[in-house]
């Protein structure tokens, strides 16, 4: 098995694990959201790279073109991107409110304030 042949998967896996690591290790809520975004973006790349057909062009009907890349994953990912934007928006809104009511966005400080009650 040629490991380099599927380098697109390696890119996706690397990005995904980076994002996942950031989500797990960082206590700052904004950083968590950034990690989450990386995590979801890696899946977008996975989908888009799957759509590529070797030697294929953009899916346009034109004379002389017979091999197309698959446009469907692009459309799917367009939807997923919108979902990702919405998730980030809701997440950021929550972080703002958390900052309003706790005065911090560091997870351990928030826990301290919760336990103090």
């Amino acid at each position, binding site marked *: 098995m040629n490991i380099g042949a599927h380098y697109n998967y390696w890119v996706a896996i690397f990005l995904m694990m980076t994002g996942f690591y950031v*989500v797990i290790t960082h206590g700052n809520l904004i950083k968590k959201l950034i990690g989450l975004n990386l995590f979801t973006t890696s899946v977008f790349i996975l989908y888009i790279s799957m759509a590529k057909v070797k030697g294929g062009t953009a899916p346009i009907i034109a004379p002389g073109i017979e091999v197309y890349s698959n446009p469907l994953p692009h459309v*799917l990912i367009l*939807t*997923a991107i919108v979902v990702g934007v919405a998730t980030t928006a809701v*997440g950021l809104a929550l972080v703002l*409110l*958390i900052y309003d009511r706790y005065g911090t966005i560091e997870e351990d400080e928030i826990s301290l304030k919760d336990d103090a009650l």
Partner: protein
Amino acid sequence: MNHLPAIQVIIPLLCAPLCMLLRWRTGAWLIATLATWATFGVSFVLARTVVLNGAITYDMGGWPAPWGINYHVDTLSAFVVLIVSGVGALTLAFAYKSVQREIRPESLRAFYALLLICLAGLLGIALTGDAFNIYVFLEISSLSAYALIGMGQRRRALRAAFQYLIMGTIGATFILIGIGLLYSLTGTLNIQDLASRVEMIPNSTYGNHTLITAFAFLTVGLSLKLALFPLHLWLPNAYTYAPSVVTIFLAATATKVAVYMLLRFSFCILGQRFVFEQLTLGNILLLPSLAAILVASLVAIFQYDIKRMLAYSSIAQIGYMTLGISLNSHAGLSAGILHMFNHALMKGSLFMVMGAVAYRTGSVYLSDFRGLGRRMPWTMAAFVFGGMSLMGVPLTAGFISKWILLQATLEAGWWPVTAIILLGSLLAVIYIWRVVETAYFNPRHEIEHGTKEAPLSMLLPMWILVGANIYFGIDTSIPLHMAERAATILMSGGTL
């Protein structure tokens, strides 16, 4: 008539912006209530049609199935839709008073709109016949759920919502990866089309790596969403700090829909033989389910916030559902599916009691229940009946599904599992009894809250659910028939 599957989702989806546009708050409630009752009506007709005439397939926009998106309504989806919309309708009737106390008046309209969007998402998951559409609807329902949980009064609600957002998004992304891998393998997203193409994949007897990876991502992602035991961490906080109405709605519907997705993906797409014989989903689910039943019930015993106690009990009850699935038999599956329905009834009524108590006393700590047996007799009686159903006392709905589950484990010869189910019920007796004892046998609270019986608009939906608990415990033919039929369809690969 034949547009019913689409109408089911469109009603709440269109009424949601209408709630926002209205300046009149009671109007928003009216619209939301009408919308949920209309969807309930539609789901009733749908379920009737499906049971009498078999599955309905509806092509969105008239595009035929493998290219266009279709809605496929079989007995299982109709059953889940019935649960979701029924609970939704009762919850909104209950909401009117409860929300006045728990939600800030300026965000009331947004609250109703979000609740409707969440409902639309959950209904969409159950109805759609397209794998990617499931993901989209899942995110629609989850995003609105995060916002709804964040509307809780205490600031911890925000943290719970954020935690749920992180975990939920990771789960949903896993599901997205799983769907993507299935698509890369088969080139289709339609569930029926997927099923037939997955079957044709050569080499699947020895395990196709992509297929196994897809299965792994889907199972983990869905387990996160349905709060299977080690992945349940988001649930207790989310249910405890969310507004009462949101807890009622989510506890009774969201996890059930996630169980539905697990069933749909493993039985209808990947195929029962592949999933159970080669990938041993049964064994994968068995241990977490048993752990959920035991550990979550034990943890529930030590909770002083009763809402939190019920949240842990929900995790245990989800364990019963997945246990039914893991048995990989017709009886086990029917028990799991039936328990989805019964659990919605009992947790719906119990969380409504929490909502009513929170409405009168402001919080639901164990100490708040002192003397409530005398001061809120109807509410506490509802708690007793709901609790009996949760324990599985005969003549309540909870008994039926546990009984069938017990029979299924005996049929499979799993004696230790039978013992654990019984032990789980005993633990339920303990944690329900704590509350009942405090409510009926402890002296009144020193500080008089001026507590009196909950308003009628709360008692009515509560007692409808309690009545359903008792009715379906005595005459269980309708849900049992549907559950058994759904199990038959699933065991045959969803083609009936």
